[in-house]
């Protein structure tokens, strides 16, 4: 059995993220890294493998993105994934969810043809686009059940059960493999790569595929054919410095309540 984990290389959320002149996300001027939320996906893939000792299970980390995106796959290999795939092609730049999910789906199909793909695991959201839609789109394109936003994952044979928080309830969802699964940051802290893991990762296979390897026409992806277009981006003006008081002998509560009353909140 082979597990595919989808990992995205994203600009560091703690840095000053920006846009390019064509309104695409600046992926060069800002340091990038494996999206923290996809670390949870890698972790769950590794745990799945570890829990099912004795079974032949491999984990393939898959990313779609520019040159540097290979770093996201490398990190997954260091954490313990067995192999990696990086889909890179100039034509992909500026792709929306629709095109990204198309390329991912084609890559999963190719992995499936070579090694099988019984389980596709995604993060709950990319930390740059934050759409939380790619897993559902992947499921739709692959014709698979989607089991999303899992905080607890259990499996037995080809049966998967997850627990998740929904709007007003907690739910248990059941499905039969193959599926697309997404996991939240409640699913358990991701491991750090060990020194041994970092060394071992250097010898693990990391393949680079282009659109033609996947049989995707360059005209189907990229900024110019995106089904939604950004017309403008505006940096939020810094908030004007507010009033800050220091609480002394209970003065803070009075000042706070006066402020709230002046704004008609009371």
């Amino acid at each position, binding site marked *: 059995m082979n597990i595919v984990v989808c990992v995205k290389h994203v600009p560091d959320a703690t840095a000053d993220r920006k846009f390019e002149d064509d309104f695409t996300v600046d992926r060069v001027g800002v340091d990038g890294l494996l999206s923290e939320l996809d670390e949870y996906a890698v972790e769950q893939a590794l745990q799945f493998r570890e829990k099912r000792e004795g079974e032949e299970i491999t984990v393939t980390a898959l990313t779609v993105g520019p040159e540097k995106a290979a770093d996201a796959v490398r990190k997954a290999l260091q954490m313990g994934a067995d192999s990696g795939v990086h889909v890179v092609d100039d034509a992909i730049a500026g792709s929306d969810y629709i095109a990204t999910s198309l390329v991912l789906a084609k890559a999963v199909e190719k992995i499936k043809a070579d090694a099988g793909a019984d389980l596709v695991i995604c993060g709950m959201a990319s930390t740059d686009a934050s*759409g939380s839609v790619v*897993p559902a789109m992947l499921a739709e394109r692959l014709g698979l059940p989607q089991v*999303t936003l899992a905080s607890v994952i259990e499996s037995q044979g080809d049966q998967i059960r997850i627990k998740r928080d929904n709007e007003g309830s907690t*739910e248990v969802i059941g499905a039969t493999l193959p*599926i697309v699964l997404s996991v939240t940051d409640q699913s358990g802290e991701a491991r750090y790569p060990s020194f041994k893991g970092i060394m071992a990762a250097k010898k693990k296979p990391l393949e680079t595929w282009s659109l033609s390897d996947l049989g995707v026409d360059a005209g189907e992806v990229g900024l110019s054919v995106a089904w*939604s277009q950004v*017309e403008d981006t505006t940096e939020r003006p810094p908030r004007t410095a507010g009033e800050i008081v220091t*609480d002394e002998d209970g003065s*803070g509560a009075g000042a706070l309540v006066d402020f709230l009353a002046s704004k008609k909140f009371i």
Partner: protein
Amino acid sequence: MSEVLVVVDHADGEVKKPTYELLTIAKRLGEPAAVFFGSPEQGDAVAEKVKKYGAAKVYVIDDAQIKGFLVAPKAEALQQLVEKTSPAAILLPSTFENKEVAARLAIKIGSGLITDAVDVQEGGVTTQSVFAGNFTVQAKVTQGTPIITVKPNSAAPEESEGAGTVEAFAATISDGAKTAQIVATQPRQSTGRPELTEAAIVVSGGRGTGGNFEPVEGFADSLGAAVGASRAAVDSGWMPHAFQVGQTGKTVSPQLYVANGISGAIQHRAGMQTSKTIVAVNKDPEAPIFELVDFGVVGDLHTVLPAATEKVKERKG
């Protein structure tokens, strides 16, 4: 004028406020038509509610075949409704579930998708808040029927009488869509407080509460507010995950947000930075949350909040 489909946000037939916000927005794009997934018995009552906000039609889709499964059946039903009605746009309240419904629908009908809009103007230009609220983005769907998921509090609901004609829509759900099964559901206990994402005021607590949320809850109740929490408070087991504000919790955009014992990490900001007025109580004058505030108190929340609660009660009489 073309119809604009608005998926009704409801809990067991109780229509939620974002529905009215979306109907208000829909009027800018065409003629609002509500889409209710639920029991046909509840359809009439829902129609009475949504017609007050301009719904000309109310499509009732019996959810007997739908509610036991995740997302895919709803996307199928909407695809069929879109084929029948050729709407100008489809608006959905931006919940995780609806974003996934929208995602599948977008692929099915070959349409562009915009998620988490905080505004939609005439002509379908959307505004989104991105990068933890540091940027706003204007965008537009350029292919197919625009599918837009809209955040709560994106418009003030405006009343206007619509015909509210109820029409049952019989969707055919394929077996292939019924594959991810909801095995069990446990409704969360109501706190009696306003819903976090819809509340006009949110009072939150973080690690600085030290696990004692009473001062935070007391202050929230004096203001009629919802209670929120940072991830640190949730990870410590002090509050359920449903109360978490931030990147991996809820995004809130209330009139007033009060952060108590919360440092203001970027992931927390991502969920509250667009609040209209921001107030913080924190004993560290260097806490980054103070960069965001309209008003801040440097002090211990365990003394400031109970005293403030008393004063609010006095003022309210």
